[in-house]
């Protein structure tokens, strides 16, 4: 399961950017075709965040549906998995959305 090492990456990147300040919230974008399970990240998060600036942080994950543009007919279509073809039958397309694995924002606690 690679989500633990993914989660470690998330915590390390955010902690570095926070420069020691406590983080209250982290938002992620995880595409449904990214090969990473959001629930598994959430599951690992508490363990990995313990003892870091993210210890008290809420994790918010926005899942993104798959969408692609066909090379043959030019139409856009939904792709719930990695092998759904264009309604025109073509398997050649460019993925527009659904493979994201990104840290969008962090919310730093206001230190008085």
């Amino acid at each position, binding site marked *: 399961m690679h989500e*633990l*090492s*993914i989660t470690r990456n998330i915590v390390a990147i955010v902690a570095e950017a926070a420069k020691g300040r406590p983080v209250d919230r982290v938002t992620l974008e995880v595409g449904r075709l990214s090969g990473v399970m959001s629930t*598994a990240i*959430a599951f690992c998060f*508490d*363990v990995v965040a313990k003892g870091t600036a993210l210890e008290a942080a809420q*994790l918010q994950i926005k899942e993104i549906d798959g969408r692609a543009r066909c090379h043959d007919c030019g139409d856009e279509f939904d792709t719930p998995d990695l092998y759904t073809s264009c309604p025109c039958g073509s398997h050649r397309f460019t993925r527009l959305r659904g493979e994201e694995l990104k840290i969008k924002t962090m919310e730093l606690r206001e230190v008085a």
Partner: protein
Amino acid sequence: MCAVCGCSDGATATITDLRHDGHDHVHADGTRHSHDHDHGHGHDHHHDHDHGHGHGTGTLVALETKVLAKNDALAAQNRAWLAGREILALNLVSSPGAGKTSLLERTIRDLGGALDLLVIEGDQATSNDAQRIRAAGAPVVQVNTGTGCHLEAEMIARGLAVLKPAAGAVVLIENVGNLVCPALFDLGERAKVAILSVTEGEDKPLKYPHMFKAATIMLLNKIDLLPHLDFDVARAIANALQVNPDIIVFRVSARTGEGLDAWYGWLRREALRAPEDAFAAICSGPAGVTKQMEETVS
């Protein structure tokens, strides 16, 4: 290691130099991550339920950072390092038992005279496979990932530092037997080679689409067993093409040698193309930088 998830990160990986006979040198970096507290984090995951504390009072910082940015940057460094030395690196991936090690042994025995072949052998534990590779005649470095289920770019950087491949060499990386996790981690290789054996299901490419999509070629191994099985070769190949219309498929048997000439031909052609990578690297700059710039623009 996380007792809940049953996996660990790269910090616990150990590199073992198996190029020489006799005793092995184990280089552990000693930065083992441990969390000895109890894993009682149970079911109150911090997502999707607000607690209403301090919202709006904090400072919102946009990060817009790829989670795997660090691995990708290291992979880009590996790629540049390899390109500068005109070294071809391939990342061999499969389920456990598909025959990666046997295929490597045979390839080393058949091509070792013509190509300078070296191996980075990834395994969760033991160096049994690496011993087999060494017996076949190739210099090999073992990377034990502990409970980690895939190789990462940082492990390859450390492996290359120990292996010290010469200019023009071919480095074959045997990833951990797992079709899920290795798909996500770029190691800096030219191409991923997926190995599917006919003793597995024809639907493997559909079950593990990330891997077959990421692979440049698929070796359909153990075809000598076909007379004894119900395996539908055409359907397996059609499934792979459905996920990746550009995937190149070779039907091979590492045991009998059938079909291996096609794989060897591909390997030799790719090795000859290695200088192109060096040229491309000089012209376009570090791949990681280009990628990051694109990210920022979009």
